[in-house]
């Protein structure tokens, strides 16, 4: 684990991340191949189910369910979920999840925070988005840096820990038991992707809502 923080990103991790991006792109192309129809087919049903779920969760967290916000949250969720899911692949070089190296969660957290600022800028104007960083006082900027740290460390700690445990178990008992460990590991894999998306949606909701209340007061 400390090596994962200290060392540079290995090439296989970059390759795995690109692999995840290619898989997601192919999935998106397959799901949206036929285009929108009044009577949905199988693929459109799957795509609509996923989108509806995100719209529901986003509205639960208080985000105004707009297309840009949901697209942003959904892409974050699926990238993290598929990166984490590589953990359960039985193929040796491909089962290193990119999120178990600190650089990847840090990049995702930066995407989340800067994405929040951009989404706020789209809906409330760029001046308001920048103002949000310094309101009510400039210390808010430190809080945003704290968000980046907490998001990235949470994802890295969970998935890196999970990966380290599975490696240790594999060393002690190479047959049978790792299957059970991987099955139990499916829970944090899903929950961490979900939590990352939820926290990003709360940041987005907070930023947009804050600007909304300010404009309504004015």
């Amino acid at each position: 684990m400390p090596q994962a923080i200290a060392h540079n990103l290995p090439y296989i991790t970059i390759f795995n991340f690109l692999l995840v991006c290619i898989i997601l792109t192919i999935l998106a192309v397959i799901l949206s191949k036929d285009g929108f129809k009044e009577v949905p087919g199988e693929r459109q049903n799957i795509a609509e189910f996923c989108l509806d779920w995100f719209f529901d969760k986003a509205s639960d967290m208080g985000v105004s369910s707009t297309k840009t916000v949901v697209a942003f949250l959904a892409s974050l969720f699926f990238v993290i979920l598929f990166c984490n899911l590589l953990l359960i692949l039985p193929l040796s070089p491909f089962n290193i999840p990119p999120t178990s190296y600190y650089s990847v969660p840090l990049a995702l957290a930066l995407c989340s925070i800067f994405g929040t600022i951009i989404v706020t800028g789209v809906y409330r104007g760029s001046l308001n988005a920048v103002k949000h960083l310094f309101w009510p006082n400039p210390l808010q900027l430190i809080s945003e840096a704290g968000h980046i740290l907490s998001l990235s460390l949470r994802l890295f700690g969970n998935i890196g820990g999970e990966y380290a445990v599975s490696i240790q178990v594999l060393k002690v008992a190479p047959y049978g038991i790792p299957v059970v460990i991987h099955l139990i590991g499916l829970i944090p894999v899903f929950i961490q992707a979900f939590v990352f998306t939820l926290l990003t949606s709360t940041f987005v909701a907070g930023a947009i809502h804050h600007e909304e209340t300010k404009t309504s007061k004015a």
Partner: protein
Amino acid sequence: MREIFLVFLPTVTIVITAVVAALSMRRISVSALEGMTRQPEVAGQLFTSMLVSMALIEALVIYCLIVALMLAGKID
């Protein structure tokens, strides 16, 4: 003496945080489950809030884990 401290400190750090976090998580899950059984119609929303609260507590444990790992890395 320094070696003893370096071995002892990460252990104490992680044990204390794990115990406190487990107690706090227990409290969260008990309250959320009570709410879910009383009002099953808001179970989905309660589950989401429960996950967010647990994630916030978990983050503190992971900070301590990182500190413990950094301390453990100093042992020769």
